[in-house]
Every structure is written in C-alpha cells, then in structure tokens.
C-alpha cells in the first residue's frame, strides 16, 4: 500500500510543478496587467507615478525567471501571493471558497453515482428491454446537455414557476440551495456512469466465472451481487474517479450561473479582473483536487481488486 502511494506521489509531483510552470508562463504573456486594466475602464485615471510604484510593489517589473523562481518557492511553502484586487492572501480567498465547492462537487457526484449506477445496472440486467432503451436514450441525452442550459431550465421550472426551491445563491448553506446546482452539475457524470455501468455489467455477465457460478447452482441473486457487481465496480470506480476529479473544473459554469461562492466563480471573476495570483491559485487548486482524487482512486483499486498489487 505504501509502495502504491509512493509511486503515485513520484508521478504527481512533477505534474504539479509542470502545471505551476505552465500556468505561470501563460499568464506572464498576458497582454495588459491588472494595473493597466484599472486605467482602461475609463472611470479611474491613475497617476503614472503611482502606477510605477504599484508595479514595483507587486513585482511586475522583475525579469521573468526571477518572478517564476520566487513564485515557485512561495507556492511550495503554501504561499500563493496576495490578490491584486483585494490585497488579501490568495490562500485565504480560496480557503473561503473551498468548502462550498467541495459541497457542490460531492452533492453532484452522489447524485450521479446513485442514479447513474443504478440506472446502468438495471438496464444491463435486461438488455434490449424498454427500460434499457429508455435509460440509454436518457443517458446520451444527458451527455449532450450543456450544464448551464439545464441549470437555467431547472431554475425556471423549480425556482421561478413552482417556487419549490431558491433560484440562486448559497443561502445559509442549507440543502435547498444545493439541490438545483448539484443536479445541473451531476447530470453529465450521471449519464456517463449509466453507460459505463451498463457496459461493464454486460461484460461481466458474459464472463466465464459467471457461467461457472450459475452452473454450480448459485442463485441468480447471489451471482449478481457477489460476482457481477464486484467485478463491474472496478471499471465504474475508474469513471467515478475521473469524473470526480474534473468536476471542480467543470463546476465553473454552474457556479457562475447559480452565483455559488465556489472556487470556479472566483476563477472567472479573477480572470475578468486580471487578478493573476488569484487565477493561478484557483487553477492550482482545481488541479490539486484532480490529482488527489486520482491518487485515491488508485488506492481504491487495490482494495476492490486484489489482483492488482502494482508489482511490475
């Protein structure tokens, strides 16, 4: 187990450094800094002397390699710099947003797993049936929806017309505010999970060991719960992991639509304000989340499937 973790970390850390470098480079070539942006909106004019001082203060005049070295050194020690806009530490800004983001992602994923896996499972047990066809039509439709349109439609129906649920915002952090964004975000992974589960279960149902189990007189119920479900789970866990990890990034649009105070909406706002430290911090946060979830998935494999022991 420790070996698995060690090998994963050895893979993860170079990726992380590369992401930091990439993001830093991307935004160093950004035309127009935060300060020139302040001048361009026409409402405020800043004295050139003040601008010069601000540039110095924010370290925008230093040569690129020097800035990167500084940035990397700070990042490794957990210091993501100060937001250009609010002057607060980026870690603090992101810290405020992480919990709502996690809540949204977990809620969306729970929805996706519960509905998606059971749909796919039931569909696979009766392939070609009406239920199967309906589930698969639903799944491919779910994959084709744009989240924010679905969110908009849900908002219109359940918040504005029926008035069952609040239309946007975080509220007091309760469940009612969470439902609509979570469903809008969860439909895509749900559809993917339904398809994957169905394919995985169908695969396993044709496997030799299932035929053996049946022929030795095992009850169908036991075959399904003991052999089929467990083996199909391996593939399903892969998809859950990949989806889970990328969901915080995908949440950007839904968060913006529902005015959800997560990392994604902070990212979009910061992009518009050219608040580079905050943008870099948010992207880093999203990537770390992705890598962390994937490491967890790798560990989960070993637990679910004893055949995988990662010995080369």
């Amino acid at each position, binding site marked *: 187990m420790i070996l698995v973790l060690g090998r994963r970390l050895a*893979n993860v850390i*170079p*990726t992380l450094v*590369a*992401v930091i470098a*990439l*993001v830093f480079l*991307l*935004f160093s*070539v*950004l*035309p127009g800094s935060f300060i020139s942006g302040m001048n361009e909106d026409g409402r405020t004019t800043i004295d050139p002397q003040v601008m010069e001082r601000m540039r110095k203060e924010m370290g925008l005049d230093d040569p690129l390699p020097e800035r990167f070295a500084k940035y990397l050194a700070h990042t490794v020690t957990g210091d993501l710099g100060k937001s250009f806009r609010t002057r607060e530490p980026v870690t603090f800004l992101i810290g405020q947003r992480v919990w709502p983001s996690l809540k949204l992602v977990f809620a969306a994923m729970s929805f996706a797993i519960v509905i998606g896996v059971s749909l796919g499972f039931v569909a696979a047990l009766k392939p070609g049936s009406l239920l199967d*066809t309906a589930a*698969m*039509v639903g799944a*491919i*439709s779910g*994959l*084709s*929806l*744009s*989240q*924010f*349109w679905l969110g*908009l*439609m849900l*908002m*219109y129906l359940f918040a*504005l017309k029926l008035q069952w649920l609040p239309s946007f915002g975080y509220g007091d952090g309760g469940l009612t505010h969470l439902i609509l964004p979570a469903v809008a975000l969860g439909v895509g992974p749900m559809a*993917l999970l339904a*398809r*994957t589960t169905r*394919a995985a279960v*169908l*695969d396993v149902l*044709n496997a030799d060991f299932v035929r053996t189990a049946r022929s030795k007189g095992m009850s169908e119920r036991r075959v399904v719960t003991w052999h089929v479900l467990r083996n199909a789970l391996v593939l399903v866990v*892969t*998809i859950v992991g*990949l989806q889970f990890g*990328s969901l*915080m*990034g*995908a949440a*950007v*649009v839904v968060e*913006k*639509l529902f005015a959800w105070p997560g990392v994604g909406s902070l*990212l*979009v706002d910061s*992009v*518009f304000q*050219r608040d580079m430290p905050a*943008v870099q911090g948010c*992207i880093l946060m*999203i*990537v770390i989340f*992705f*890598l962390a979830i994937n490491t967890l998935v790798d560990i989960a494999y070993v637990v679910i499937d004893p055949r995988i022991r990662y010995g080369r």
Partner: protein
Amino acid sequence: MKLPRLRGGTSLWIGGGLVALAMVVAIAAPLIAHTDPVLDANLMNAEIPPGFDFWFGTDAQGRDIYSRIVYGSRISLTVGVVSQVLNSLIGVTLGLSAGYWGGWWDDFVTGLTNLMLAIPSLIFALAIMAILGPGLSSLVVALGLTAWSYSCRVARAQVLSLKGQGYIQAARILGYGDLRIMFTQILPNILGPLIVIATLGMGGAILSEAALSFLGLGIRPPFPSWGSMLSEARDQITTAPWLSVFPGAAIFLTVLGLNLLGDGLRDILDPQSTTRRT
C-alpha cells in the same frame, strides 16, 4: 464483447440526420433566415413570444430569435470542426511519433499528455481565452489546443500494438522512411477510432464554446452564438423564457446528433471499442 448503446444503426441514422440538418442550416443560413441576425433590431417588436411571425419569438432588441439561431449554427459548427481538426492533427502527430520512435520523445509526449489531462480542458481553454481575448479565432485556438490528449493516447497505444506487425517490418525492409511508414502504413489502420474521437470531440467543443460564451469569454454579443444568446437571455428568464429555451435546444440537438453519430460510427469503425469514452 458486445456493447451496443442504442441499436447501432438507429443511432447512426438519427445522429447523422441531426448533424446533416445542422450543416444544411449553417450553409444555407442566408436563404432560410428571415432577417439579419445582428442588424434587424426593432424595438417595436421587443420580447414577442413565439408565434406565426416570429417562430421562436424576439429578444429585448426585437431581433428574430429564429434567424439568430440559424446564423449561430455557423459559429458552433465552425468552432466544432476547426478545433477538432487542430486537436486531431496535434494528437495524431504526437501520438504516432511517440509510439513509433519511443525513447525520450515518448517519455516527453506521455508527460505532456498527463499534464494536459490534469488540467480540465475547459479551465485551460478559459485561461487561453483570457489571454487572447474574446472572438471566434481565439475560441478555435483555445479549444483546438487543449483537447488532444485523448486522440494522442489512442494513437500511441495503437501504434505500439501495430509496430511489431509483419507488414510494418516489410515496409521497413523495402526501405520506407519512418514518416512514410507512419502516415501510409499505420495511420490508415487507426483512422477509425480517431474519427470516432473527433466526432465525439466536436460535440464537446460545441458545449465548451457555449460555456465560454456564456461566461463572456467566447463570442461577444451582438454576434449570434448560441452560448452568447443564452448569456443575454439569463436576465430575462422570468419575462421571456423562450430566449433561453431555443438556443439551448439548438445546442442540445446538435451535440446529441454528434454523440449519436459518434456512437454509431464506433460500432462500424471500431468494433473492439478502443474509444469507449472515459
């Protein structure tokens, strides 16, 4: 291994039909649109619900939503097709060469692919849009540079499995150069899966275009992209819900068409299903 999603043929035909429809609409836009999508604003006609004169209603500036959606198809399809051509070119070139040559180049490409996979493509595209500024060409670049990891992986894996085959060795003995072998001997054999990936990727690119335009980073109003139309429509959802319904439905049907087509093509071109989407 049997993995029919919907019955192969049905999804191919429905998907192909929807995609063909979208393409016809895009090509014939000036013929079938009722008005100019940008210029024909008339405040006398503001926010008219769908009806006989205005099939899909009008927006706050009195522009015909139907005509705007017709023209919007041009943007969506352009973004979808061009960005996928870019992605395929990058992915196939990197994947082919990495699998064929191996060595440090392979390590480098694999590392790059893992890096691309770690950054969600929408986030990456968003960052590039922030740098390049809004507009069609930046959209194509942003989406065309950020989603090649999948075709790269598939191309590389396929090359690795084909490299040892007799006909590749035969070609080498005949004195074919590396590039010639890659593009004339290997590429045709892996084209099937790559076409499936590109078809499904087109749907993804159209969704990303809509998302970026919705956030205000893609196509900016007044130009009629389906995403930017939705972005404008959000504020009027209480008074004019049709503004949101129709552009969203257009996105849905186009992407659904591409997904069905991709599924159907997979059953024909890639029976072993190397492209099962993860």
